[in-house]
């Protein structure tokens, strides 16, 4: 070991100076560009999580660390010049510091995201209170490396408003009105999240239909009436559920704005204007009944009748906790301020 250290020392008499040299800056920056070129080419043929895995390999972490060390030492070496420049009213050196200093905040943001980011997907129907029940949670991301408990979140979904461009699967509007337990009422849209806690935001990510079905016996008594959240959008997709009190299974699809054209059912638009439920009731492998039902119409089977008195929406929400986000925004702000300060001066002519 001493021989190795001696060999290194004889070749690099000033290791700190070497680590902070502009030559190493160029080498590391070009290496970083080549590494990203490799990733970029890989990304055209691999899914993002594979690219992310490659980006997190040890050699690349070593490159990142060397870049940060080099930047730190370069900035340290140039500190006296910056102080002199500031005293003389020249701000461009401070701009360099702010821009390159933002890289450290960026690294911190990425680290916080890797350590703490969590995402949870919720499905809540209109009029339903979100209480964190298992059936309301559609998915969770893998636990973050450090996993502190999340702040409680409670709200009622008052309304979901999707609007479409005619009969095309293009949302022109998708928003939801929420009433939080604190009494505040807020609206979230597909790209307008709400901050609901420290570094935690809630955003709308989708919607579906939640029809209320009603089963009546042959004497007209309602024996079962429940809302079911189904994945039956866009039209053509079918989903199913089991009756609670009976052995029957109901498979259905919903045509949101139904009309008849040449003997078949079509949807004029994707807005829920005139919904028709195409329902099929089965017991085991025996199909008992199948029919297209408007709101309130009944489907008879084995002494029971099934109807759908109303259709509501359910909203899908994503709750993300990511303490890296505010740090990232701070990094962006610093970088931009640094660039603007650099703009105040004429760029140097160049040359070492």
């Amino acid at each position, binding site marked *: 070991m001493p021989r190795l250290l001696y060999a290194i020392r004889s070749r690099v008499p000033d290791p700190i100076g070497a680590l902070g040299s502009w030559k190493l800056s160029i080498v590391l920056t*070009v290496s970083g*560009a080549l590494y990203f070129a490799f990733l970029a080419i890989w*990304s055209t043929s691999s899914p993002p999580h594979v690219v992310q895995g490659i980006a997190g390999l040890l050699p690349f972490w070593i490159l990142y660390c060397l870049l940060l060390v080099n930047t730190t030492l370069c900035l340290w070496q140039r500190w006296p010049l910056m102080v002199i420049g500031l005293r003389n009213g020249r701000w461009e050196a401070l701009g360099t510091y702010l821009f390159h200093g933002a890289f450290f905040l960026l690294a911190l943001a990425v680290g916080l995201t890797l350590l703490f980011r969590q995402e949870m997907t919720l499905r809540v129907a209109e009029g339903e209170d979100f209480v964190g029940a298992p059936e309301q949670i559609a998915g969770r991301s893998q636990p973050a490396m450090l996993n502190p408990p999340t702040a409680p979140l409670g709200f009622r979904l008052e309304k979901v408003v999707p609007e479409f461009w005619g009969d095309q699967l293009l949302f022109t509007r998708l928003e939801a009105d929420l009433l939080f337990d604190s009494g505040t009422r807020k609206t979230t849209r597909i790209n307008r999240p709400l901050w609901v806690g420290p570094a935690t935001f809630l955003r709308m990510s989708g919607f579906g239909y939640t029809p209320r079905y009603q089963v009546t016996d042959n004497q007209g008594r309602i024996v079962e009436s429940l809302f079911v959240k189904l994945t039956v959008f866009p039209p053509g997709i079918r989903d199913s559920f089991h009756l609670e009190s009976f052995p029957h299974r109901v498979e259905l699809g919903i045509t949101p704005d139904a009309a008849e054209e040449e003997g078949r059912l079509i949807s004029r638009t994707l807005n829920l204007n005139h919904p028709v439920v195409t329902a099929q009731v089965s017991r085991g492998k025996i199909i008992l009944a199948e029919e297209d039902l408007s709101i309130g119409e009944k489907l008879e089977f084995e002494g029971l009748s099934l109807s759908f008195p109303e259709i509501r929406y359910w909203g899908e929400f994503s709750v993300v906790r990511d303490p890296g986000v505010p740090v990232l925004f701070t990094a962006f702000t610093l970088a931009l301020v640094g660039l603007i300060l650099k703009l105040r001066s004429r760029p140097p002519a160049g040359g070492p």
Partner: protein
Amino acid sequence: MSTAFAAFFWVMTVTYALAVGAQLFGLVFQKENWIDRTRWAIGAGLAVHTVLVAWRWIATGHVPTIGNFENALFGAWFIVVMTVWAGWKEKFPLLAAGSLPFALLILGGGALSDTSYQPMVASLQSFWLFIHIFFAWLAYGAYTVACGAGVIYLLKSRAGESEDPERLKRLDELMFRSTVFGFITDTVMIAAGSIWAKDLWGSYWSWDPVETWSLLSWLVYGVALHLRITLGWRGRRLAWLLVFAIIGVLISFWGVNLVMEGSAHVFNVG
């Protein structure tokens, strides 16, 4: 698009093409008056181009940034405007010969796309989208001007060419300043895109191919600036670097969506 719109579109495109052809003719056969006259043609083409952008904006009711056609129309407008401004400011009309071909390529690609009106869908109704796209086109326009200046520099500084050294020096300065401007606006573009991605997808970085290529482009231009400022790269070396650096920009905008379908950056919403 309507017949009238199409007619104006092709008048504009042909005007640009003829102007580029005339400049190249003037460059090769050393006829300066041909190059000077193309200024009027490019100006006329830009006027028609501006009318088309405004026409599309009014007809669709939103900024023309939805779909490949609108992106091509609006993006090419930025390239032409920045080329005209740089060429006028530096008194270097030949600059268009280097950068307008990119505008023509973009317009041609856009013309092959679906030109029907697309609505401003909910996912695009974001303040950050407009910031992202606006600065993207400023950056791409600046990088194109830098590349165009690089091409002209390489042509004019060949052995046997008797170009005024002072003009070459101004061209070199234009390459550098355009790159600086492009880098700053590119930084804003990436930042705004990250913020919008966080709002729309819940994550500020998803290793999407377009994101990765954009970051690569930003790094390449960052390397170019470091090489200029730290090592003093200028002239032909810088010109070659800027000519090759534009490849990353082209791949970010076109190449990824031509090669694969899995990118979340789909410009066509239909």
